[in-house]
């Protein structure tokens, strides 16, 4: 195992976050804080409790997942796409580094960035709403698993993208709507029966409800099903990245 290479890629990517701290940290924290202020403190004060918690507290897991998913995907997609775009990917390809080491470096850095953002958002949320975490270890486990899984997914998108537009399609057109319609701001039970059934086809519903269960011990979906769904998606991403990398698609001719 080329540990120096993993370290080099990891810190190289983390350094990019340091250089672009406004975009990497401040921007997601500010936009999520605005949700807490508007939906949590202002509008939330007029909405009755959901699942036994105030509306402001109820939306914390959903907004946390919204940020984690979009940040993890965009961090790692950009991380691998940018060297492809500038041509500097040549040095990663020409170095004595295995595909696994490349993935660990890029995905590890992306997941770390998202984890940092997630923790800052949790801390920020505590300023605006009452925050209780019933199962902190499970919450931390889901937080890390989500960051890793969606960073891998983002890495796959970055490998397959040929331009900046393709890079943005999945996070903006697919992930954001799925999160908003996945019960981040409401419970599935609030929907008409037909739309409740439709919602169960939205994979993000399982992720948000898993996270919500770790916070409040209550959710629309069984926690076991949520965790299995997340692990299943992680395995799918690993298989997808392994196939793409082994064929050299997107990076090698």
């Amino acid at each position, binding site marked *: 195992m*080329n*540990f*120096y*290479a993993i*370290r*080099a*890629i990891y*810190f*190289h990517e983390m*350094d990019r976050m340091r*250089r672009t701290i406004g975009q990497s940290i401040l921007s997601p924290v500010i936009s999520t804080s605005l949700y807490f202020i508007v939906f949590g403190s202002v509008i939330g004060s007029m909405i009755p409790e959901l699942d036994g918690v105030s509306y402001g507290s109820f939306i914390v897991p959903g907004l946390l997942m919204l940020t984690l998913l979009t940040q993890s995907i965009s961090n790692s997609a950009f991380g691998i796409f*940018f*060297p492809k775009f*500038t*041509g*500097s990917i*040549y*040095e*990663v*390809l*020409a*170095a*004595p*580094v*295995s595909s696994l080491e490349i993935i660990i470096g890029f995905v590890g850095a992306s997941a770390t960035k998202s984890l940092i953002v997630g923790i800052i958002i949790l801390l920020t949320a505590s300023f605006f709403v009452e925050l209780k975490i019933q199962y902190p270890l499970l919450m931390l486990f889901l937080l890390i698993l989500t960051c890793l899984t969606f960073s891998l997914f983002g890495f796959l998108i970055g490998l397959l993208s040929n331009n900046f537009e393709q890079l943005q399609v999945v996070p903006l057109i697919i992930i954001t709507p799925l999160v908003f319609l996945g019960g981040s701001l409401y419970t599935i039970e609030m929907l008409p029966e037909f739309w409740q059934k439709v919602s169960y086809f939205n994979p993000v519903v399982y992720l948000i409800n898993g996270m919500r269960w770790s916070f409040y011990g209550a959710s629309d979906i069984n926690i076991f099903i949520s965790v299995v769904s997340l692990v299943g998606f992680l395995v799918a991403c690993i298989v997808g990245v392994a196939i793409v990398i082994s064929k*050299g698609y997107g990076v*090698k*001719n």
Partner: protein
Amino acid sequence: MQNVVSIKKLSKIYDNDFQALKNITLDIKKNEIIALLGPNGAGKTTMISIICGIVIPTSGSVTVDNFDIIKDYRRTRSLIGLVPQELSLEQFEYVFNNVSYTRGLYGKPPNPSLIEKILKDLSLWDKRNSRINELSGGMKRRVLIAKALSHEPSVLFLDEPSAGVDVELRQEMWQVIKDLRNSGVTIILTTHYIEEAEAIADRVAVINKGELLVVDNTSDLVKSMGQKTLVIELHEAIQVLPTKLESYNLTVLNNGLSISYNYDSSSKQTGITSLLQDMKETGLKLKDLKTEQSSLENIFVELVREN
């Protein structure tokens, strides 16, 4: 001398069916400077990219220091440094950090004093804390060389190292390349500049349309394939060549004030003595004589044209 890179029957066909390399076989000797000469699209960069692991070959094999580039890719790649043709750098990074990053990629522990030495040797030390987008084109190319040297490779590939570099800097770069060879590094460079190959390469390999046309020592190639020309300046201009001189295939130049004679310097009988004798007999008076050797450029152009 021991071979450090051995290329056997290497071929590459791209997805669009373009065959960039056709059965190339080439041995590169340890500690030599070899120049790969060829026009655009000849296959030079493809060949380098395959050896460095960036492009997957269609068939054939390559070994570096007797290790296969695919089976033993970690060993071979750690021996190789690559300076690409394009200025492929992340523009917002700092010079020192970026060079150190490359060393890490090659599995080497951080060594700030080595990076300092490399940057000083390449006159980049003053720019160590500059962002790459603040550097000139020549400096960026030197950053690429610094990156390629950061893991102390024993084989260095330079893909068009002088592209976009001014004359003064080009001379400096040649000196850097010669110094590297003197320190034990084998250098393989591709170039469009014949002058560059002539100035620094021990051997030249001419590639065209994916085929290797010739490989030889630079001086031997010029000697064996080049022609020499004897230019004779006359006291008085001539209108027509005397009949006696027609068999020499002379060319009248400079409004009849000079004649030129092409001969093969490697043959035992150049024909110069008999030409001068016959000129004397026809009454032509000589003013001056000079000889010209055809350059590597002439040979290159001739080879590519024939191919």
